[in-house]
């Protein structure tokens, strides 16, 4: 099935010339989903009827000669923490099992306005808390490369759906690495934009100062098109940045001669798998062959970033998740004697273990007597982490390293040890703490599993990230590797 090897640009051309129709694309997606979903389980829900109806409308528009956007007619999927009016949005949790939002997230409004076709909502760790999608209240998702392995998390469903060829692109969210790490584990492209570039209105909040929505795609150019469609100031999100949005796709083909790339020694330390380090070293050679100057630097506070994140994120989460109390929406535990009991029973039965763990950790860190020692302290270290990056990015355009210390691990391997799971995030969380943009791109395979390369840029400099990622991609063949899933794609 060669359709899934076509880029967004190529698909758009074929739709415009009517060589393909959106209805055909939706058919192919649904057929593919039927073939592989039993094994992958990337989705929580599908909207087949809605997708077919929308595809028909798009085909009519094309027939009548109307111009269509780049993403028009293309099947896509949204992580299930982005609200979609009238379409169940669960956040991977029992507490929202039957929740049908009364409004659309801004990103979904943009997807609709672009005439793109959302096929379904994808699986995730509950409330985005996790790095493996094993904490979904419903079921785990399986890595298309090795079904016994995790796809990463928390946007594991979105990444697996793209890697398995079920949709052409997907949206994920990233608070501590939740777009980039699953992209790395499943051999696709995942971009976390600068904090504030993409509206968080309608993204069910996990950690408000860290969350960002971003594209997960099969190649860098596709990511540029998707970013173009979803980026921009939103008056409904008071943390939305009022910046001019450049043309991301026009900038891709500039060469990167003379680009200065910093490689932090802390990103290639002892905790990183030697084979992963090897893949990164090979990637550095490619950048050098393209004329980039790669130099070692130090980000000395890297070793404190995970601890900082695991105070700040749970603290913000404990506040954000207090809205789930059974009063206005979501499941309510019915037989309770008084209001407090109702809250407790609802939340205890509705939330999974990891969510409860983080709520308690956050509540503790913010509680009287401990606030200064934990939350305030973590915010101060956050400043130090941010300053490390600012210092390096004065003299360099980009920072490069592996996205994750290892390749994907087996389902069940880390589930009983939260701390081991958290340490997985060492290379991704610093980026969220600083609010910087970063992309993970495929950098080859190690023992049959994908390795991700991470490029971190200056605030609002997605152009530089996309250009260098694109040049690397076009000068290697990693992005052409596809998982073998019974039926070839």
């Amino acid at each position, binding site marked *: 099935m060669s359709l899934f090897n076509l880029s967004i640009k190529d698909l758009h051309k074929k739709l415009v010339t009517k060589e393909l129709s959106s209805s055909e694309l939706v058919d192919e997606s649904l057929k593919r989903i039927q073939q592989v979903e039993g094994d992958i389980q990337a989705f929580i829900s599908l909207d087949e009827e809605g997708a077919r109806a929308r595809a028909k409308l798009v085909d009519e528009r094309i027939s009548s000669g109307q111009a269509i956007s780049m993403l028009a007619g293309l099947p896509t999927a949204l992580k299930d923490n982005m609200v979609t009016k009238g379409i169940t949005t669960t956040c991977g949790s029992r507490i929202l099992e039957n929740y049908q939002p009364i409004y659309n997230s801004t990103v979904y409004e943009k997807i609709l306005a672009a005439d793109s076709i959302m096929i379904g909502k994808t699986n995730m760790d509950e409330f985005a808390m996790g790095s493996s999608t094993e904490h979904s209240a419903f079921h785990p998702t399986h890595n298309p490369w090795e079904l016994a392995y995790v796809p990463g998390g928390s946007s594991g469903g979105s990444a697996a759906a793209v890697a398995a060829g079920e949709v052409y692109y997907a949206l994920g969210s990233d608070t501590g690495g939740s777009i980039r790490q699953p992209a790395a584990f499943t051999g696709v492209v995942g971009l976390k934009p600068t904090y504030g570039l993409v509206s968080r209105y309608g993204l069910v909040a996990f950690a408000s100062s860290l969350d960002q929505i971003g594209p997960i795609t099969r190649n860098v150019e596709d990511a540029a098109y998707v970013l173009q469609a979803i980026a921009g100031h939103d008056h409904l999100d008071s943390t939305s940045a009022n910046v001019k949005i450049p043309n991301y796709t026009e900038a891709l083909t500039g060469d990167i001669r003379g680009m200065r790339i910093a490689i932090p020694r802390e990103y290639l330390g002892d905790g990183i798998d030697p084979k992963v380090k090897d893949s990164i070293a090979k990637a550095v050679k490619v950048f050098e062959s393209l004329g980039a100057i790669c130099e070692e630097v130090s980000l000395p506070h890297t070793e*404190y970033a995970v601890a900082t994140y695991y105070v700040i994120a749970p603290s913000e989460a404990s506040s954000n998740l207090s809205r789930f109390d059974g*009063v206005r929406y979501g499941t309510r535990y019915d037989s309770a004697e*008084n*209001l407090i009991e109702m809250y*407790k029973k609802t939340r205890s039965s509705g939330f999974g273990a990891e969510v409860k763990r983080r709520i308690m950790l956050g509540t*503790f860190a913010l509680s009287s007597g401990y606030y200064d020692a934990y939350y305030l302290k973590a915010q*101060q270290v956050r400043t130090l982490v941010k300053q490390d990056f600012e210092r390096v990015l004065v003299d360099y355009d980009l920072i490069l390293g592996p996205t994750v210390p290892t390749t994907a691990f087996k389902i069940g391997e880390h589930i009983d040890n939260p701390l081991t799971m958290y340490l997985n995030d060492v290379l991704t969380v610093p980026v969220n703490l600083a609010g910087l943009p970063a992309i993970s791109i495929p950098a080859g395979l190690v023992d049959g599993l994908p390795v991700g390369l991470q490029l971190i840029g200056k605030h609002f400099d997605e152009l530089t990230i996309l250009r260098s990622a694109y040049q690397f991609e076009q000068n290697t063949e990693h992005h052409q590797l596809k998982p073998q899933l019974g039926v070839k794609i």
Partner: protein
Amino acid sequence: MEISRTTIEHIANLSRLNISNEEADSYQAQLNSILHFIDKLNELDTSQIEPTSHPLDLSNVLRADVVQESLAREEALRNAPSAKDDQFRVPAAIEG
């Protein structure tokens, strides 16, 4: 810093969570190991460092104080587990 069993129960109450004895045991162990890891932050002297609560330099993002459309009541109540007289219905907050 070691969290005591009493503190776990206090936190659970603040978080509006019921936890069984087994859960309290396991949360206590897990939270203690996580906190032990977090204590690493004390290696750093941050006495002169300003906290960062937000990555962007934004403050007081407000709109003009002009009345705009708001959510219709039926919409707001649409997902209510229990509603009565155009309000959300909940168990009594106060005893007797």
